[in-house]
């Protein structure tokens, strides 16, 4: 039982990271109906940037500054590479984001360097014991911060003017334009939000370990998350993120008991298998809107 709860605590920590990343994907999808494959690069560059900032200005200020900076980078990328393509086939824009991802990742990777870089987080690998279960500080912190960020995000969509504009654009782009919503600004804000969320996710994904060039691979796990939750559901992204995190951690923990004949840990592919299973039953994901085909 303790083993299971430990696995769940790890899963909730990792799942929070997935949820933050997935929210970025969903925000962009809702605005432009495009999946941005550039999120992994923003995540890596966020972590790298914070690792440079935090020794100078402290960890918390470093994270805030890093998040804002990556949001600005995402804005610039949207302006240069994505905006000229609006109206073209969705697939073409998605491929452009793959290209952007590769370029940004190479640039960010060049700053990782040979010496191990830490983001300077205060948690390290310390644990607290809650009811006999050892919970790592960094997982607890990720869970709490993700909770705050998600709450703030939902409040932003609910109560601000631009949040309303974003919801209107997601519902019907042309009708929103007719009502005077600046759709270009909605695109820009969506990309900035997604970039910022990816940067925060990058910080928590690399907490406790030195930053690795391959950090971006974690971000790909957010893809099964958005499919599982439904591409256009913000709540679905959060729930599916936590669910995939927990499933992955539990499978990793019990791998040797469940699959003694497999040497490599099955935890890594569990998200993808779960995604396939759900898609066979519900092609639109758990909370997504069913696609209506009009002739």
């Amino acid at each position, binding site marked *: 039982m303790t083993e299971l709860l430990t696995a769940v605590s790890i899963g909730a920590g990792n799942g929070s990271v997935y949820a933050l990343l997935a929210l970025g994907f969903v925000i962009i999808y809702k605005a432009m109906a*495009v*999946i941005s494959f550039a999120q992994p690069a923003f995540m890596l560059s966020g972590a790298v940037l914070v690792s440079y900032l935090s020794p100078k200005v402290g960890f918390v200020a470093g994270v805030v500054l890093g998040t804002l900076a990556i949001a600005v980078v995402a804005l610039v990328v949207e302006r240069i*590479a994505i905006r*000229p*393509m609006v109206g*073209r086939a*969705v*697939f*073409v824009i*998605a*491929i*452009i984001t*793959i*290209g*952007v*991802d*590769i*370029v940004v990742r*190479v*640039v960010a*990777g*060049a*700053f990782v360097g*040979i010496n191990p870089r830490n983001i300077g987080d205060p948690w390290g690998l310390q644990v607290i014991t809650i009811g006999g279960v050892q919970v790592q500080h960094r997982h607890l912190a990720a869970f709490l911060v993700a909770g705050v960020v998600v709450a703030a995000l939902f409040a932003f969509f609910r109560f601000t003017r631009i949040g309303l504009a974003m919801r209107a654009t997601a519902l019907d782009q042309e009708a929103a334009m007719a009502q005077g919503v600046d759709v270009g600004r909605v695109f820009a804000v969506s990309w900035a939000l997604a970039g910022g969320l990816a940067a925060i996710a990058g910080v928590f994904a690399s907490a406790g370990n030195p930053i690795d060039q391959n950090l971006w691979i974690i971000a*790909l796990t957010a*893809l*099964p998350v*958005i*499919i599982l939750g439904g*591409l256009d559901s913000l709540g679905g992204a959060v729930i599916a993120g936590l669910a995939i995190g927990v499933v992955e951690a539990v499978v990793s923990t019990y791998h040797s008991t469940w699959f003694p004949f*497999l*040497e*490599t840990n*099955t935890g*890594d*592919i569990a998200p*993808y*298998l779960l*995604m*396939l299973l759900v*898609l*066979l039953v519900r*092609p639109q994901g758990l909370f997504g809107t069913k*696609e209506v*085909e009009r*002739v």
Partner: protein
Amino acid sequence: MSTTTDRPQTEAVPAARPRRRWGRPMLYTSYAQEMALLNTRAKQLGVLAVIAVAAYLPLTLEDDILNLLGTGLVLAVGAIGLNLLIGYAGQVSLGHAFFVGIGAYTAAVLAGDPDGRYLGFGVSEAVVWIPVAGVVAALFGMVVAPLATRLRGLYLAIVTLGLVFIGQYFFAEWRDLSGGPGIGREAAVPVVLGQDLTRDGAYTEEQKLFWLFLAVLVVMALLGRNVARSRVGRAFAAVRDRDIAAGVMGVDLGRYKLIAFTISSFFAGVCGSLLYAASGQFSPEQFGLLLSVQFIAMVLIGGVATISGSIMGALLIAMLPRLASELPSFLPFVSSRPNEHPNVFEVELGLYGALIVAFLLFEPRGLYGIWLRIRTYWKSFPFSY
């Protein structure tokens, strides 16, 4: 529309076979003429000339460049397959690397030494294992295809991406097959009609492999072109342009998506079976996301829905490492050492991304589009404006 009526027509045509008029290259007097494999005299001569030059290249070029170009020719086979799927049938797949891997392992197992460390059946004849690798990959494609009938667009892209990860896991896990991650196993040695092509004889290994790759590419390109211009190709285009409308017109969507995946995987399998013939060794990590993205880059840089474009794109991507390694002599700030930044490896990877973005922004029809412009310029000379 034409599918129901073209049968009686084609029976009536042979009575008075329409002939091409001399001096009127663009005048077609029948549908069959327009859809012919090489529908103008210039194309007929041009293709023959290109093949002749390509066949002559091994006698003049250095071995290391031949090696690169040969890899490009093999990659072109895979790129044609992906172009049939993405360009013609409109089904976005990020899973091409998986099918290439299936082909590579099938060939390696068939040709492998039965007494060796890894699985092998000792069928060394390439004429046998190249098509079998294609067929096995095609069978896997058939298994995956039903997903495509349920999913569209980006959902399909992400699911096929999952396929790459799951495939990589099983390649790495099945050590008898693959030798395990980081170690790998020997690739299939191409033995054509009893001749081991990797032994230097009257011609070197690189020259013989190049001719083999060229022959395979010509056959596969012909196959791809024929798929594209036939009834199946027209159905693909209809599915791509508007699948609901195609369904209403009587195109069986499920069937044609199945055909698209199967054919594309067949090409991928053939590509995989030969891809590591030159290096002789491959490991499971090679069939990752990067390979899939490289194939997509070939299709997009070459030209969507063109066979010749796929070949051009594949050759460009294959030459990219070489081009990047030449950079330090032109741009002094690019280092050739991996511990300095920016170095050639970063530049190479960055170039993939930059080329994809640049082509999609400025030349959406790819290298084929550039060729089209040059052709139009000279065709309408001196009124080319």
